[in-house]
């Protein structure tokens, strides 16, 4: 079956512009996660969805970041007024259920470059 897909694969944007990143999880997976991977920083947890609800938004770095999930499936991560420090690879993962004992399957990521 299809894995986690993300689009676009690459995004170059000018500082101050808004961007939307999309994640299509594996069908039937109730849990969805967004992580950010910056050079030399490892993977940083951003937000977790269980169904359409986001019980944990604690990892979002600022109020310029928001995310939503609709129909228990597709999720969109929006970054408003992008800054150069937002440049990173944004990874989406999904799992069958929302506990760490369930394997998280990662998408290929969206590489965001803010110029």
């Amino acid at each position, binding site marked *: 079956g299809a894995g986690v897909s993300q689009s676009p694969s690459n995004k170059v944007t000018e500082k101050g512009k808004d961007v939307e990143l999309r994640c299509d999880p594996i069908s039937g997976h109730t849990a969805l*996660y967004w992580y950010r991977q910056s050079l030399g920083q490892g*993977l940083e947890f951003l937000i977790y969805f269980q169904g359409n609800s986001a019980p944990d938004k604690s990892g979002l770095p600022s109020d310029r970041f928001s995310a939503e999930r609709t129909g228990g499936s597709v999720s969109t991560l929006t970054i408003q007024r992008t800054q150069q420090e937002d440049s990173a690879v944004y990874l989406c993962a999904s799992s069958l259920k929302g506990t*760490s004992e369930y394997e998280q399957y990662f998408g*290929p990521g969206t590489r965001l470059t803010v110029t």
Partner: protein
Amino acid sequence: TQLLEQSPQFLSIQEGENLTVYCNSSSVFSSLQWYRQEPGEGPVLLVTVVTGGEVKKLKRLTFQFGDARKDSSLHITAAQPGDTGLYLCAGGSHSGYALNFGKGTSLLVTP
């Protein structure tokens, strides 16, 4: 945040050599996971270790979970160029769902 420290950060070896990479923490984890990530792709789960002292083997890869469940190691025997990649360890967080990742060990195996 439960921190996971990985070492070495970079490793360049020749085909056929053995190597060990380490994942250490001051915190106890209920489980630790090892992932491999290749350029342009997301991390792929290799193994999950759950029991203190547990050893798991995956072909030429041997994973060990420390007795106190605070550390783990990955040993690769007779490395191949196909083993090249970023090796990440991850542990469950207090939240019970998000993973805390180490910064990874970047491995390059040259023919």
